[in-house]
């Protein structure tokens, strides 16, 4: 019997991409004074739009607008009124959800199934959640009279463009801060669509400012003397540069950086469920996930059986058009990222690990990398130590729970971990010992606005989500 899939493309008609985009400053779209750049569709390399670059003067203008809005309007506004603006934004996101999902998939390369069923629902939920905090800050257990910090400079990555925007903007605004946010240069379009949503919500000018550009624009923002808070999600390398740049200033800092999560499978784990969790852990969003389960630690006695089942499952993954509703793995976000993945995968082979990928035809144009697994990986290998940020899984084995803990924690990172076992007490025993900010048990890559997220060690500091997420934006 033949089980071929027919194409099931999501319509692009819901989105309307303009040929060029300016900066969103003080409630208006304005020109940028740096050299404009192009945002492309990573699935076919088509140019989507030309995007303005904010130079130092543009950044300055945005920070001043945010300061005015904070001092005159947003800071003094009662929490219940701020709440109503955020509820409006949440509703507008819900109303325009499909449009934003399609736009996200076009600009980022992620499968529509993920942008539609994961990113967008979480974006709306995040605004709803923090809208509810805006008039309850005194109940958050952070002190009797928490005050906003002022102006927040926020720089976000390209892997979950609109979701990371929501994680940054929703708590900042709920707490009475105003923001200047820079989206990643490869994925600016949903942030610019969000600027329109701010206008539809009648959000006062200057409360949210969106500036676009590459690393220089981001640097100008975080180094600007007029901001009170820096929030960054991205690579550990850039995070360290930012930590150095705010040293000696009164700026507050939160960082959500890289990871090299261990996904630990014990011999009593339900193997089919574990296989689903492993696949979700590393191939979700093409592995462009800071908390991806990129190191599989499997108990030796079940390693062969598990790997056999994992390979069978990987053969069914569909790689291709992000807008096809059957697609499991979409396009790599950029040529640069694809090059980095290739380089590290090459290093995996050179250092002696065994590489395997299912047969799968990749499209001719665009940036693609087949789901890949490396076995026989040693802890010293680069693919066991460095964040690949792609659909590449490194498999290691262990014999005892103590060895699993030792190996899981043998990394400078500490963002997340997974544990698979039928034994509840062992889950909790492992959770106590894993040096990671999030531990998923018998599941993986679960996110909720009510649940704090963030890392230990070089995965950064500060938490986003939940009651804890408020602390990053309040003087308590």
């Amino acid at each position, binding site marked *: 019997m033949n089980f071929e899939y027919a194409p099931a493309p999501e319509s692009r008609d819901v989105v309307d991409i303009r040929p060029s985009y300016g900066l969103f400053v003080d409630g208006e779209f304005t020109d940028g004074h740096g050299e404009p750049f192009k945002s492309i569709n990573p699935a076919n390399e088509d140019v989507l739009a030309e995007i303005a670059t904010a130079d130092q003067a543009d950044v300055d203008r945005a920070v001043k607008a945010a300061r005015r809005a904070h001092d005159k309007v947003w800071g003094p506004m009662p929490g219940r009124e701020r*709440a109503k603006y955020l509820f409006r934004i949440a509703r507008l996101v819900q109303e325009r959800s499909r449009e934003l999902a399609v736009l996200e998939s076009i600009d980022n390369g992620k499968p529509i199934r993920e942008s539609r069923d994961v990113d967008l629902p979480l974006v709306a939920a995040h605004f*709803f959640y923090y809208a509810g905090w805006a008039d*309850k800050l005194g109940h958050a*257990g952070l002190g009797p009279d928490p005050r906003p910090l002022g102006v927040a400079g926020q720089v976000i990555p390209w892997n979950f463009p609109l979701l990371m925007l929501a994680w940054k903007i929703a708590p900042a605004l709920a707490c009475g801060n105003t923001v200047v946010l820079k989206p990643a240069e490869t994925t600016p379009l949903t942030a610019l669509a969000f600027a329109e949503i701010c206008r539809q919500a009648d959000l006062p000018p200057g409360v949210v400012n969106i500036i676009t550009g590459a690393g220089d624009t981001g640097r100008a923002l975080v180094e600007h003397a007029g901001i009170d808070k820096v929030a960054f999600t991205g690579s550990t390398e850039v995070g360290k540069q930012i930590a150095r740049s705010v040293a000696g200033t009164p700026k507050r800092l939160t960082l959500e950086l890289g990871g090299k999560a261990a996904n630990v499978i014990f011999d009593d784990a339900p193997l089919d469920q574990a296989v689903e969790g492993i696949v979700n852990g590393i191939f979700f969003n093409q592995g462009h996930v800071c908390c991806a389960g990129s190191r599989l630690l499997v108990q030796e006695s079940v390693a062969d059986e598990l790997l056999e089942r994992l390979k069978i499952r990987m053969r069914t993954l569909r790689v291709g058009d992000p807008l096809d509703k059957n697609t499991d793995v979409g396009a790599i976000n950029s040529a640069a990222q694809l090059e980095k993945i290739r380089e590290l995968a090459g290093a995996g082979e050179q250092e002696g690990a065994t590489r395997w990928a299912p047969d799968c035809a990749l499209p001719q144009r665009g940036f693609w990398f087949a789901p890949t697994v490396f076995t026989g990986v040693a802890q010293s290998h680069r693919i066991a130590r460095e964040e690949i940020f792609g659909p590449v899984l490194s498999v290691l084995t262990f014999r005892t729970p103590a060895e699993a803990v030792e190996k899981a924690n043998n990394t400078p990172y500490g963002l997340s971990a997974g544990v698979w076992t039928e034994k*509840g*007490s*062992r889950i*909790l025993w492992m959770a106590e010992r894993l040096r990671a900010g999030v531990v998923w048990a018998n599941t993986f890559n679960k996110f909720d606005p009510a649940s704090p997220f963030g890392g230990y060690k070089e995965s950064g500091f500060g938490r986003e989500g939940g009651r804890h997420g408020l602390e990053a934006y309040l003087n308590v």
Partner: protein
Amino acid sequence: MSDRLAVRKTYKLFIGGAFPRSESGRSYVVNDARGRFLANASRASRKDVRDAVGAARKAFGGWSSRTPYNRGQILYRIAEMLEGRRAQFTDELRAAGLAKNAATAEVDAAIDRWVWYAGWADKLGAVAGSANPVAGPFFNFSTPEPTGVVGIVAPDSPLLGLVSVVAPAIVSGNTAVVVASEPSPLPAITFAEVLATSDLPGGVVNLLTGRRAELAPWLASHMDVNAIDLAGAEEAQVKALEEAAADNLKRVLRPVPGDWSDEPGTERMTAFLETKTVWHPVGV
């Protein structure tokens, strides 16, 4: 003035998502502040109380197992629906005797109150629950859960007072049987129309109009009611109601003097919560 003759509304009860008349066939006259006839409100009976409790019990399982996020969305939807009827409620409150500005302020405050409580749905657990550091190899945590069916004797503030007692009871997953203000019951029934169009499952809130002194004791003594809010109970009746409530150890929220326009705290929510503590061993 138009020559057109107005089509008047029949004010009925709100039980299980439907609008039945009282099974007793009784009604009572409701006049405006100047003594002019407004409507005949249904005068609910003991059996209506029992039907309402039955509907509330039936709705409890579904409502309490909704995600907190979903309950929050529905409470926010109630605010949206109420906002769309500002003019209607302002008129009803003026008919009930409020001056124009006071009526507008009360409607606005009532809408904002739903927004306030909507935001609590997915935060109560974080504020009222805890992970408990017990001295042993155990993971131990406490979470708040809804008490069950809450009987509410609503205060006379016909809209703001009503929503200020109903919202905190249902936000956590309780269901409610409410005896509306006796002198000003009409806004409560119009408010039931808001509830009926807000995706709130039928039976989560049931509204009865009638004689408070007749209905409150049946609610207080009903063995399938888990808690009772005496906000609007007459002072002389409170002791007897508390005694009746003791038969199945209902949680009792006594009337507290105060202005319904004051910022609410969390007491009205936590009054109708149980705390569940779970122990689990930690070890390989």
